[in-house]
């Protein structure tokens, strides 16, 4: 393998880590609450702005602001679930999807209204740092993002596997009615799952800030990738979201290298399309996608 190809693969995996980071929260929400939360990208955008302003106004490093933003977004997610999605829990699919789309429109344009369309980036201590062996140096923030994706994946995995709440979340994801009959307060579980999912994307926003610029439509790009990954990995599967993220990162990097970087998105959307149709349960999916 040529040196350049190794670099392409490393970059692809690192990018995949970032994608995985964003998708972990989404797979929880999509897999359990069954809401196609298109506004997940806007949650990311908001958390990036939050992290940006914390740094600009008070000089709080994004890695520190995680401590503020994670709980903040947990509450934010619960409010969104309670205010918007809970009232339409039993409404037809069209209502849920368009409620999410309405939320996208509002959040995206509120950001545009407050912060204009400018690209905003910050320079932190870690921004320019490189680590790794000579010739294969990688940016420290990307590496941290990758590690964070692994830790969140493992954390969530053990949480839903071993705690009572986690088991209740899985049960609710499998069958809402049956969970209700087992004495699980499914509405509360939905609130918690939505909160955790939002909190994850809040963390993702902080970790992306040293790497990317933030602008009002930044989420729109990431959210579609995240959906591809969630479906690829299988609904509600943490490991699936992580592996799926890495696969998409690799596919993107390799197709950029071998074919053309302009078509890389088209390629994974085509993969996504075939996957949806021919392997709708995803790689690690246990829940049927009807």
């Amino acid at each position, binding site marked *: 393998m040529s040196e350049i190809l190794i670099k392409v693969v490393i970059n692809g995996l690192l990018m995949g880590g970032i994608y995985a980071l964003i998708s972990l929260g989404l797979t929880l929400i999509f897999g359990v609450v069954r809401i196609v939360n298109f506004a997940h990208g806007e949650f990311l955008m908001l958390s990036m702005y939050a992290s940006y302003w914390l740094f600009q106004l008070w000089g709080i490093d994004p890695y520190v602001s995680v401590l503020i933003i994670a709980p903040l977004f947990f509450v934010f997610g619960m409010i969104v679930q309670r205010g918007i999605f809970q009232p339409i829990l039993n409404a037809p*699919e069209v209502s849920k999807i368009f*409620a999410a789309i*309405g*939320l996208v*429109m509002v959040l995206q344009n509120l950001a545009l*209204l407050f912060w204009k369309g400018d690209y905003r980036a910050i320079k932190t201590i870690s921004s320019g740092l490189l680590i790794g062996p000579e010739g294969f140096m990688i940016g420290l923030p990307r590496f941290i993002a990758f590690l964070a994706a692994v830790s969140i994946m493992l954390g969530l995995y053990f949480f839903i596997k071993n705690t009572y709440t986690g088991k209740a979340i899985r049960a609710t994801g499998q069958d809402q009615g049956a969970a209700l009959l087992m004495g699980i307060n499914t509405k509360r579980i939905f609130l918690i799952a939505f909160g955790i999912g939002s909190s994850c994307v809040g963390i993702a926003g902080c970790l992306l800030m040293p790497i990317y610029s933030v602008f009002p439509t930044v989420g729109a790009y990431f959210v579609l990738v995240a959906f591809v990954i969630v479906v690829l990995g299988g609904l509600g599967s943490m490991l699936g979201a992580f592996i799926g993220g890495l696969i998409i990162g690799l596919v993107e990097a390799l197709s950029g290298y071998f074919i053309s970087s*302009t078509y890389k*998105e088209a390629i994974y*959307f085509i993969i996504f399309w075939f996957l949806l*149709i021919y392997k709708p349960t995803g790689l690690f999916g246990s829940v049927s996608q009807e």
Partner: protein
Amino acid sequence: MFFKTLFRPQIYIPFLGLTLLILTPVLVKSPFLLHIVIITILYAALGSAWNIIGGYGGQLSLGHTVFFGIGAYTSTLLYLKFGLSPWLGMLLGAFLSMIVAAIVGYPSFRLRGPFFVLSTIAFGEVMHIIAINWRDVTGGSVGLGIQFEPAFKNFIFSTKVPYAYIVIGLLVLILAVVTLMEKSRMGYYLSALRENEDGAKVLGINTARYKLLALMISAFFTSLGGTFYAQYILFIDPYDILTLSLSIDMALVSIIGGIGTIIGPVIGSFFMIPLGEFLRGTLGGAFRGIHLIIYGTILILVVIYMPQGIVEKIRKKYRVLVSKLPGFRPEEILSLRMVPGSHILQTANARSFGEHPTPFLLEVQNLSKYFGGLAAVSCVDFRLRQSEILGLIGPNGAGKTTLFNLICGFYAPDDGQILYKGKNIEGFRPHILCQKGIGRTFQIVKPFGNMSVLDNVIAGAYCRAPKNAIARAKAEEILKFVGLWENRNLIAKSLTLPGKKRLEMAKVLATQPDLILLDEVMAGLNQREISDATVLIKKINEEGITVMVIEHVMSVIMSLCHQIIVLHHGEKIAEGAPEKISNDPKVIEAYLGEEYLIARG
């Protein structure tokens, strides 16, 4: 006759609306206002086109921008490169869109719910990316401009008035098609498959075909809108005409107005688009995107507080208004026309039975079906005579419903075969089998919840009725026959359980089956309802229909059936007349356990 109907408010109010619409381009002098009018009507047309598949068919496409884009690019490219008149290009683009719709729709329709939505979004994104990067043809991000050379054949006009009339024509055309569709076979079939796809299949509806057809029609009209837009703006680029937000807007006007209704998308766009355009015009620079914040907020509020859209809120007021206007007469109740034939449930028997030598309507030979290692149905044989009632009993999990699913084509057998009228029916899908005369009900009822009881049955009657009036007349007869006539105008989901079970039977009977499979139509009914249902099944059988019935209520089975088959763990353990079965030790053992047998000595 026709002339008289013109003086009824139900007719002249829409005509007044149309007249007003036609006068608007002449009355509105300001080009800015006229632009808003044109864009509003264009969205009304696009929303109405989307509504065919999204509203009536219930398949939420968020990829319609592709058809819009194909329309715009096809006509524009043919005009720029070959000088072909955009009028012609518009038609070519529309046909191309239909082809693309067929190719993409066919696999995508296997998906349901959010996954279908995601697949349409992915499709739109792929096209967006291709349009940006295929610079040689599409001009990439730079876009394509059309020279301003006004001429009719160029589809370019020096004032906005002709454009306004063209777009009004487009809207009227789409509305006419939707109106015709709504009260025809296609409209009923789309609503039925939206409400319950399996329930639709067993009524002989080829759901895949009708979804595809609806998508193609929808794509055709969306594409016309795309060409119109290109010729109106004289400039296209992938950020304007091939974007997710355009797909969303088409759906948005329908949802806010009222999804699955004729007038909904029109009301939605008349409400939303001028609002947005005015906000953009007046607040524009200072508050970019404020109109989208308002759109989004309205969308969320509508979805939560009036999920049926604005239409639902004004429908009652409109009816009251109409009833007070001069010339009002209530809608005539269609006079009952008898369908030719002496028997009410005139079946297909006379048509096809007797062409084959065997006296058995259904012969099941050595039939097996495995789920993993479990033999749900194992080597089952039986024969069913014409006009018999066959009971199928056995403990829960014995494989009774699986057997039904095999006969109806929902499952493919792993071994053995099923002969119907002497012919092997392997590989026939449920809707084909229904057309051939095998009807069934579901244990868990599958009503088309948001349609009226009558409309539920009409959807079934289309299986054999060539015309709308015949389907309706047939459905009305059947409703009287099963005793649901009083409830015909209720919404199906509001029926009680016995009512829903009866509706299941009515829907199947409307397809005029030769063989009817009833899956626990009495479960959950009280004693009186059970005896009513028993009488009904006898009546059905007296009409010459062969019946196969799964039931747990033994007294019913014993009094009703000519023959009984007992299944246990997927195997046939007994067969014969009711008296014989009730004394069979193997049957008693299966139901009551070995101990019972021993205790009884």
